[in-house]
């Protein structure tokens, strides 16, 4: 057992309101530079939709991630030793800037400096690459909220496995649904970007698992852009170096949550340490597609198990990190409660960002909203809304609809479990059971036996349901982000730096040795 610690993340999709605050926070801190304008280390997509860059999930186009090599192992799909080296002059699978969008701004100055005249001056869009006027073809979040549109939603690669009828049902106007999918780098355990880099510039930090690109070592061979199946490694066209999400490591090291998480309006984001067994990476990454999720979850270790603790200590994992792992909200969501799933596990990078699948678009049903018995129960305020807006919350309807969902479970399974519908369903049932349980506790209009049955089916106790409810809905900042101390002090001592000097140089005290007594 080779125990390592990883800072992992959970995004609770039911809570995301699609406000893009996270994206803007990240942009303002990290990518507001020449060559990086088009990069959104954090972006929020509308699903169904094609995403950013367009159709990034379709690896027939982008050739990202790993694939089975036919001998029980795996190999990089579009990069790797033979391909990265032979395609080094021209990478045939490299996306171009038009797959993202050409960054633009407007000539605002024209508005102010235009001569007085009869015609209103306009601010024309200009390319941020060439500075020339341009016709905007695409921009960040171009398909925001555009579920049902032929150009975007219907071209979602996840629809491939759905039957014609299922697809049509999804896009019937009055049944239309969508949800938001915020994405950042997953800081994978079997990172394709790391494996594809010919220069060896990309690495995973041992202490916390953050995947970084050494900007001094990157030579612009741009294989990581192809290899990352999530398209989260970006090429800076100005500096000729690739860049990616750094999980705000300077903030993490000082005990702050990453900017996207800190600013998240919906409070959908959780961050915490998970201990894992690095010996099992290869085995988990090359598992049969049907077992991928299970094997990945198996790798994650119980931080309370004395054996795991001993092995972690043996490996130099700090005590404070082990303690963080024990209080980690992500461990709870992913392992203890079995509520979260990785995005596209079939890419085999073992992503360490997990998603609680969204229940709402699955459930929300307007078909029976005119049911009068149901309407009677609605609060007066609720009645002011037009009938069609009211979600049907009758119990049978709620629980029954998971199977009969207007948002086919196959679609969710294609996103979060490599097609395993049961894995998604069991998690949605849990979420539903918790809702029923909380409704019993707060509104009290639900038949207790039904709730108990639902809890039992979902494998939950009332207590656990409350704990999940707490972390989902009420959790405070410190519950959502459990950040292990970075122990910079040990690093400084370890590097044989003069502690006094370092203290002085970092702004505490003076750079001066201590006086010897009598000297």
């Amino acid at each position, binding site marked *: 057992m080779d125990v*390592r610690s990883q800072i992992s993340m959970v995004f609770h999709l039911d809570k995301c309101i699609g406000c893009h605050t996270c994206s803007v926070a990240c942009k303002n801190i990290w990518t507001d530079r020449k060559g990086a304008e088009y990069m959104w280390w954090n972006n929020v997509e509308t699903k169904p939709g094609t995403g950013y860059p367009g159709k990034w999930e379709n690896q027939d186009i982008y050739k990202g991630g790993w694939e089975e090599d036919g001998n029980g192992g795996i190999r990089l799909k579009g990069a790797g030793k033979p391909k990265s080296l032979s395609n080094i*002059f021209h990478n045939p699978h490299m996306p171009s800037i038009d797959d993202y969008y050409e960054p633009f701004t407007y000539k605002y100055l024209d508005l102010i400096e235009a001569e007085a005249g009869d015609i209103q001056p306009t601010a024309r869009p200009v390319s941020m690459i060439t500075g020339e006027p341009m016709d905007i073809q695409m921009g960040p979040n171009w398909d925001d909220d555009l579920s049902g549109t032929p150009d975007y939603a219907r071209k979602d690669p996840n629809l491939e496995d759905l039957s014609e009828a299922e697809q049509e049902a999804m896009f019937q106007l009055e049944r239309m649904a969508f949800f938001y999918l915020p994405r950042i780098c997953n800081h994978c355990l079997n990172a394709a970007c790391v494996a594809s880099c010919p220069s060896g510039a990309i690495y995973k930090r041992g202490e916390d698992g953050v995947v970084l690109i050494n900007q001094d070592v990157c030579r*612009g061979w741009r294989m990581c852009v192809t290899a990352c199946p999530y398209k989260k490694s970006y090429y800076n*066209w100005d500096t000729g170096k690739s860049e990616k999400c750094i999980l705000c490591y300077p903030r993490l090291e000082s005990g702050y949550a990453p900017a996207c998480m800190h600013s998240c309006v919906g409070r959908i984001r959780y961050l915490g340490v998970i201990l894992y067994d690095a010996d099992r990476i290869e085995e988990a990454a090359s598992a049969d597609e049907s077992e991928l999720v299970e094997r990945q979850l198996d790798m994650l270790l119980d931080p*309370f198990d004395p054996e795991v603790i001993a092995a972690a200590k*043996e490996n*130099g994992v700090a*005590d404070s990190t082990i303690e963080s792992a024990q*209080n980690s909200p992500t461990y709870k969501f992913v392992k203890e409660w079995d509520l979260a799933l990785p995005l596209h596990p079939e890419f085999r990078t073992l992503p360490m960002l997990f998603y609680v699948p969204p229940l709402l678009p699955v459930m929300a049903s307007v078909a029976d909203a005119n049911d009068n018995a149901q309407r009677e129960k609605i609060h007066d305020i609720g009645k002011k809304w037009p009938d069609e807006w009211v979600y049907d919350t009758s119990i049978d309807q709620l629980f029954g609809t998971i199977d009969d969902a207007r948002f086919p479970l196959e679609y969710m399974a294609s996103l979060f479990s490599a097609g395993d519908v049961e894995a998604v369903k069991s998690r949605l049932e849990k979420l539903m059971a918790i809702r029923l349980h909380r409704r019993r506790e707060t509104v009290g209009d639900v038949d207790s036996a039904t709730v108990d049955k639902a809890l039992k089916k979902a494998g939950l106790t009332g207590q656990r349901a409350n704990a999940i409810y707490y972390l989902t809905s009420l959790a405070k900042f410190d519950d959502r982000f459990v950040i292990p101390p970075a122990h910079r002090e040990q690093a400084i001592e370890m590097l044989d730096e003069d502690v006094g000097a370092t203290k002085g140089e970092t702004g505490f005290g003076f750079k001066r040795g201590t006086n010897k007594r009598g000297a």
Partner: protein
Amino acid sequence: MNWFDTFSLVLFPYAAVAVFVIGMAYRYRQRGFTVTSLSSQFLEGRSLFWAVVPFHIGILVVLFGHLLAFLVPDAILAWNAVPVRLMILEGMALIFGLATLVGIAGLMYRRFTNERVRAVTTKMDVLLEVVLLAQVGFGVWIAVGYRWGSSWFASDLTPYLWSLVAFSPEATAAAAMPLVVKLHILGAFLLLFLVPFTRLAHVFVAPLHYIVRPYQQVIWNWNRKKIRDPRSGTSVSGRRR
């Protein structure tokens, strides 16, 4: 030997190598951020293919040929002793030389006609491409006009180059060469001279070590096992908070 010969065949080569070694070492160690291929494929990829691939493959093969003539001149001469083999060698050299020429011309055309690529073009890029174009052009001209280069390079120029290496320059043979050959020699050292100041630096960081390294790379910022001996220090309990 006149002043031009002395300068281009003796002085400049030494200056160029010195600038290259010192400049590149400094840039690699202190300015690692600037060492990159500066690929513009991301901005324009389609027409790039038809220029960049012939250019790189061509120039690598041709460079390798020059290197062989420099390192093992006797083997080249022995090979060339049979006319058919000589024709094959020279034919290959010309084909790859032409590929390089077409490639660099295509790259320049693309650089000047594509708006986006022009936006990321620096003065040094233009200078470098002009020098490269001239250098490759001279090379092809020599291959066509002064046969058979592989033989006279190995017999006449290799001793001259080795005399430079041995710090006892003997350039009379080189000075007797036609002007275009001298320009080709000058161009070669000029390119070396330019390495520390241009994107040419990427040639010297070709990622060959990738072949032997394991796919995954994990780096610890400090020696974790030394710093945290599990038998010392505080312990963490298995209790839940």
